[in-house]
């Protein structure tokens, strides 16, 4: 069965610093990969997705993620974090379309000024 691991439960970064959130997946083939963001009390907003092709994908709000097949990873990055980026971030995997999205446990990002 497919699974997603986000090793970091909490991460704190200073405003203006770079950010990398880790995501590892377990699946026998190349899955469809997603990053969602959830602000407190809010729904899930899609940041970016990877289906195929270029392994570096750009998303909204200045985020990007890189798919590395050899490491089964799909890490999320941002060069300069803003205070408004404080939220919880979920990595997700779909094995084929119409199938459920499997989420990681989430990483809570805190931004200090």
């Amino acid at each position, binding site marked *: 069965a497919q699974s997603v691991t986000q090793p970091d439960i909490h991460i704190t970064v200073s405003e203006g610093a770079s950010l990398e959130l880790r995501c590892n997946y377990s699946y026998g083939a190349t899955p*469809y990969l*997603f990053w*969602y963001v959830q602000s407190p009390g*809010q*729904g*899930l907003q*899609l940041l970016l*997705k990877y*289906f195929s092709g270029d392994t570096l994908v750009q998303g909204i709000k200045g985020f990007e993620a890189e798919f590395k097949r050899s490491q089964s990873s799909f890490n999320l990055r941002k060069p300069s974090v803003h205070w408004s980026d404080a939220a919880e971030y*979920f990595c997700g995997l*779909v094995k*084929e*379309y*119409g*199938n*459920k*999205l*499997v*989420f*990681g*446990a*989430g990483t809570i990002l805190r931004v200090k000024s």
Partner: protein
Amino acid sequence: EPEVTQTPSHQVTQMGQEVILRCVPISNHLYFYWYRQILGQKVEFLVSFYNNEISEKSEIFDDQFSVERPDGSNFTLKIRSTKLEDSAMYFCASSLTHEAFFGQGTRLTVV
């Protein structure tokens, strides 16, 4: 831009009562889902629905839960007899292919 709409945004119910959570998926989507997020925990899959039947369900989705698409636009989740542990945020989602679009959620509080 099309979006998934959930109502109500917050519902408080007494333990043992039935609740129905409502969702209007995006109109041309074919796959429909319910997820649950207990406060402070991960987002968990409950059930997927395609072609007017359940295509997959999790262990959480026991006999107390049911889903229905009563007409061409609504998708509902019914909890027959609520328990305290059903308190959570419930998200509806729909998809046409790989990408799921989520509603803003219904916060269910069982007292």
